[in-house]
């Protein structure tokens, strides 16, 4: 094992590469949960985004249309969750989970219908890179301060946080609770869809069934780990990305005669998440009305 394998340039580059999709999902999760809706359908939004992004880019030969279609697809799936969670006040976990299963089944089915057993054609346009990283990596990083500014520096952000903490109080001062929540959930789906586009168009250059492999969920873990703040989510996403990068980099490495247990190392981020959720990494408090359906007072 060498130092390079642990903190070398290639490991750090891989960290960024692996952190970006988690970060995008996490930023979506922060926005949605700050408004009081838990969106575990982020995983599904991401998967739908990955698939639709590839198809749109391949059909139109335009990377811009590909990315835009991915965002729209992610938003639409989140829209279903929003209707279920906000309008019908259904259980948000059940609704989100159902949508994740729907997304997996639907994309796998359509993928087979479109491309059969050969998979995605090889001529999908590529995303531009800046400083050896996909442009979407830099976009995701830029979204961190922007999200922070939005939540804590704008009138809309103030209202969104109010809705997530005490929707009835927000309603009494004339804030449309449902409108704010719809917007937040849709935005979270858009961000997850973008994350999906990054995975399929930039990392894999193809779509494979279930390719998001739980990154949407890890994004939600990053929300909690990062204490519902965009900057915290960045730190968490980088940590998870680094964990993943390490387990690749240390493949086959040895310390003395002992092989580094890479698989075990790969579980480290998730172990950290459990500890974070259990409250061992500082006090972590969700928005007071997170995941609680809001019912207007009847006339």
């Amino acid at each position, binding site marked *: 094992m060498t130092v390079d394998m642990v903190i070398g340039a290639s490991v750090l580059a891989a960290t960024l590469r692996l952190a970006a999709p988690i970060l995008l999902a996490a930023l979506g999760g922060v926005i949605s949960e700050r408004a009081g809706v838990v969106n575990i359908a982020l995983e599904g939004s991401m998967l739908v985004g990955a698939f639709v992004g590839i198809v749109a880019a391949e059909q139109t030969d335009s990377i811009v249309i590909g990315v835009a279609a991915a965002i729209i697809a992610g938003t639409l799936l989140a829209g279903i969750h929003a209707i279920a969670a906000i309008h019908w006040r259904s259980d948000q976990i059940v609704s989100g989970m159902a949508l994740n299963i729907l997304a997996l089944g639907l994309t796998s089915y359509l993928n087979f219908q479109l491309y059969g057993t050969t998979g995605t054609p090889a001529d999908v346009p590529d995303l531009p890179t800046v400083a050896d990283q996909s442009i979407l990596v830099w976009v995701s990083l830029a979204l961190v301060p922007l999200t922070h500014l939005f939540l804590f520096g704008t009138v809309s952000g103030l209202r969104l946080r109010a809705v997530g903490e005490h929707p009835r109080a927000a309603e009494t001062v004339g804030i449309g609770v449902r409108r704010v929540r719809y917007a937040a959930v849709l935005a979270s789906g858009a961000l997850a869809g973008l994350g999906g586009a990054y995975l399929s168009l930039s990392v894999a250059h193809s779509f494979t069934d279930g390719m998001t492999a739980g990154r949407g969920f890890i994004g939600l873990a990053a929300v909690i780990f990062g204490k519902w703040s965009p900057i915290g989510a960045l730190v968490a996403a980088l940590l998870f990305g680094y964990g993943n990068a390490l387990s690749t980099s240390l493949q086959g490495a040895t310390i003395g005669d002992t092989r580094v247990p890479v698989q075990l190392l790969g579980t480290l981020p998730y172990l950290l998440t459990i500890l974070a959720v259990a409250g061992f990494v500082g006090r972590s408090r969700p928005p007071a009305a997170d995941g609680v359906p809001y019912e207007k*007072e009847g006339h």
Partner: protein
Amino acid sequence: MTALLEMQGIRKRFGELVALDGVDLSVEERDVHALLGENGAGKSTLMNVLYGLYAPDGGRILLRGEDARIGGPRDAIARGIGMIHQHFMLIPPLTVTENVVLGDERTGALLDRRVIRERVRELQSRFGIEVDPDARVEDLPLGLQQRVEILKVLYRGSDLLVFDEPTAVLTPQEVDELFAIVRTLREQGKTVILITHKLREVFAVTDRITVLRLGRNAGSLVTSATTAGEIARLMVGRELRELRPRATAGSRDVVLEVTGLGALSDRGTPALLDVGLTVHAGEVLGIAGIGGNGQSELAECIMGLRRPTAGDMRIGGADVSRDGPRRTRAGGVCYVPEDRRREGLVLAFTVADNLILGKQAGPPYATFGVLDPQVIEREGALLAREFDVRPPNPLAIAGNLSGGNQQKVVLGRELSSSPRLIVVSQPSRGLDIAATEYVHDRLLEQRARGAAILLISSELDEIRALSDRIAVMYEGRIVATLPAAEATEERLGLLMAGHESAGAA
């Protein structure tokens, strides 16, 4: 001169229940107007109609002589009506300033904190309302949170401020400060409606009074030309009894003895610190204090619901420090918890089932683990009648009863076993005058029988009316224990606010 607000013949029904049956209310400009009545008299419904939360079924509202249709809170705010809710409508993690301007920020898309803070400060100096504009609301005591609510309403330009039972959560000193603010509001040209059922407050600050009873007008009075007796008669519809004369406590046998008790709160912070107290047979020991100063934890420790971290508890001389609730109860201790809906009753169960809860395991209610519904119903009917539960139907669902009748079910279950120690917490919270009287009578009956009673209440009137001695809790400690005769309201108020020196006579 026309009145600022005229509500004429307001009707509102909820299904079968007629909440308002043609109520009139006339409020003069620059007056502080008391809206009085028992629970269920229709005060809150009337104000919710005014605020646009309920659409009335009949009647009309005139503001400055003009017809006003109020379709929702936004309409109400636009017409200069502001509501200070009983349960504060504040966002705890946001700052005072953010809470005040929320929903009406007037700063463009970016939040200009300097500008909004300045606006809040201006408002504060004009109306003499002091509170740090940069403090987080969750860090403020309730008295200051209420000021944030007042600022919120003033910020929206309200001329008519409705206070819904504003003193329920305040210490006596905070009440005085609130009333000072109310007087400033009047001087500055505002009109105030004060919903309350506390007569003392009416005389402290109001000009005129409207009394409601059972959804109808019971009377309109000028405060300076009436008496407490007259108002009470209008509210209740009959004469009130004078406070009953009490014989001094009979025996001096110590029933409950607590020494050096310590315990943690649910959040793991110290809730009780070195608490010591004794309650004798035939004595009521009142625990006064603002909610959240360790009273709940104290009751839970005694009942075996919370594990003490230090100290010693004895009941009739036997160490009960490690007993769970089942053993504690078996030892002749009963408990009327502060939240009857969550801890006192199973709301989805019948009255009869609730009445035997805790005794259900053995005869006569069960044999070999199988309940005998006939015995339970018969016993339930008996107790329901004895404790005046209305309707006296043992098969009624507890959750459908009124608050007063729910409390009677709890009392029926707890007191029917002739306990030697009764731990009761906030026994009259949310009850009207008649139900409160009933509860107090029953407790004093137990005292006369020789039971020891530990009475926890944040209502000073209740504490003073029932207690032989009064202990004051502040931040997990008992800061003083006084004989009832020496416990003036002022002294108790100071102790409750943490001024320990007031304990020394």
